[in-house]
């Protein structure tokens, strides 16, 4: 069930810029400090550039606890204040069931079933976007 993708990583999560959208792909198990760093990185990038949307892809995440839930909801609130929208994409069903039972329905968080839908929600030109494999990795 768990593979190499769950190997923990500390430091920065890669943030891709695709036109006016930031694409953040979370993989595996995050350190609390990495999640907090990510929040700051997103804030700085959104404030510094012409970003109008942030997509957080959770499809590779097996567990979202209340800490991670708070980070997601804080990112959404923060980007709203910085004139950008956040969409959380690809949450696994088991994660959604667990969050509801935990009591975290995260109102105010926009969601999409996958990254493509999320980009569409944000009005991005999906067909014009480069393929994920070719997109460059931005160093923080």
């Amino acid at each position, binding site marked *: 069930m768990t593979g190499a993708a769950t190997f923990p990583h500390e430091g920065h999560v890669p943030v891709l810029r695709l036109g006016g959208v930031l694409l953040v792909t979370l993989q595996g*198990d995050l*350190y609390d400090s990495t999640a907090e760093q990510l929040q700051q990185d997103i804030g700085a990038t959104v404030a510094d550039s012409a970003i109008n949307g942030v997509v957080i892809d959770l499809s590779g995440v097996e*567990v979202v606890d*209340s800490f991670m839930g708070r980070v997601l909801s804080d990112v959404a609130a923060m980007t709203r204040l910085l004139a950008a929208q956040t969409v959380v994409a690809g949450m696994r069903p088991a994660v959604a*069931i667990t969050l509801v039972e935990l009591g975290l329905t995260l109102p105010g968080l926009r969601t999409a079933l996958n990254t493509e839908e999320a980009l569409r929600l944000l009005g991005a030109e999906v067909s014009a976007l480069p393929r994920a494999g070719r997109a460059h990795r931005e160093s923080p």
Partner: protein
Amino acid sequence: MTHSTGSVSACLPIHSDLDLVRVRQHVRQMTAQLGFRLVEQTKLVTAASELARNALIHGGGGQMECTPVSSSGGVQGLRLVFSDQGPGIADLDQALSDGYTSGEGLGMGLGGARRLVHEFSIDSRRGVGTTVTVTSWTSRPPRPREAP
């Protein structure tokens, strides 16, 4: 539920961010081995994450004991015991209620963790520490939810 208890399979320290990751991974691995369904795995791993973080943040660190158990009916389960030697919890009812938080977080940790597991007990003494014991089973006969 009466059950036999195996020997403690692992005792993990909880003193850092990294330990929280290790706790989640260990519980994930154990639940997968014992044959928990994916949703039940995710619930127990999430509960473990909440309780380990409580021990770290409020208890100043502690440990988790992880023990496979089996019921008299032969159902497999996993028991997790989180203990710390922190200040203890002054008002347990308050700490278990949703929205109560004494620090960072959304205040869903303890009450939320209780909802994610089949059995939950907490023992907290001022100045001595807090021990939370949770158990979940790979399957369980349908029965009415306990009164809140």
